């Protein structure tokens, strides 16, 4: 299904070069994202999301962590407004990425900016950011972005489908502890953040409060513990800055 140059341009035009460079720069990140997508697919139906719903979610929402969280919340019986509010909070970090990229996309027409916004993931941000650091030429850089986005997007949707299929072939897969895969994947994502004391304390506060407040209705405990953890971490960070003391290491 590889579409050749739609306007009969030469295949070596910069936009093709940029597009394929973007796609190939993203390949290593696909390897990390693939199991994530497959696990999402296998977990969907056991957690109460239909196969069609799972594919639609990957196609339309396209945001890994929040899709997992939605599954977890669905299984726990959370209401839809809570799931949507949680999605908002979890994906709010993307605003940091877009704040970073805005100077690089300002010159583009709105439909391009909208498409790029839709495709803004942790992985594509990483790939595109490297490209912008390496060479400042913005002329065709949005094609690099498109290449990275489409590589991630097709991989994500395809892996969701593979996961759904595997889940149907091995219906007992849900008893294999794949629910733990979600926890362990998140743990692996959390650990690299734990570099400063405020961050460590924030995460511990959130963990303890999440357990303590687990029985609140609608998973409200999640938001409560998240906001508390952030407030504590931010306070510690600001106190540390104000006192301007060197960090105590033990």
């Amino acid at each position, binding site marked *: 299904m590889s579409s050749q140059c739609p306007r009969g341009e030469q295949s070596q035009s910069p936009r093709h070069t940029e597009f394929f460079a973007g796609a190939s720069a993203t390949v290593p990140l696909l390897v990390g994202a693939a199991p994530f997508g497959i696990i999402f697919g296998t977990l969907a139906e056991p957690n109460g999301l239909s196969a*069609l719903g799972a594919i639609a979610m990957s196609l339309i929402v396209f945001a890994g962590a929040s899709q997992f969280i939605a599954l977890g919340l669905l299984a726990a019986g959370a209401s839809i407004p809570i799931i949507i509010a949680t999605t908002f909070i979890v994906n709010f970090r993307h605003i940091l*990425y877009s704040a970073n990229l805005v100077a690089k996309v300002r010159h583009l027409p709105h439909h391009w900016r909208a498409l790029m916004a839709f495709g803004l993931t942790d992985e594509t941000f990483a790939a595109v950011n490297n490209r912008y650091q390496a060479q400042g030429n913005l002329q065709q850089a949005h094609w690099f972005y498109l290449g990275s986005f489409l590589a991630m997007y097709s991989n994500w949707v395809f892996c969701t489908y593979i996961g759904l299929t595997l889940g149907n072939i091995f219906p007992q897969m849900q008893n294999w502890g794949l629910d733990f895969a979600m926890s362990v994947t998140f743990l692996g994502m959390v650990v690299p953040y734990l570099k400063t004391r405020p961050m460590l304390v924030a995460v511990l506060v959130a963990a303890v409060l999440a357990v303590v407040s687990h029985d609140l209705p609608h998973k409200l405990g999640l938001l409560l513990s998240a906001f508390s953890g952030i407030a504590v971490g931010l306070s510690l960070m600001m106190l540390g800055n104000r006192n301007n003391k060197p960090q105590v290491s033990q």
Partner: protein
Amino acid sequence: MNETFLIGGMFAVTFSVRYILFAMAGKVKFPPWLNRALEFVPPVVLMAIIAPNVTMPKGELWLSPLNPWLIASVIAVITALIRKDLLTTIVVGMLTFAGLRFGLGM
């Protein structure tokens, strides 16, 4: 239908967050404290999800060396600290969990 609302709502909030600054092309600046607060968001939210999953896998608090969810999580964290590679962490954590739960029948 419920799933339509769910997916539509998730799309709306996710896309809004990703698009708003691109749409306004950088006419807005966050106060510094908000920028700082945003840095805490991903790990804090993720941990608030993980903690009950692994400490109360059967609905009640289970802080015990016999809890395979908890032990495999500890092993996964150690792996992540040593290897700093997400895939390795997932594989080691899952193998540990499977070994404890199905190998040793914990």
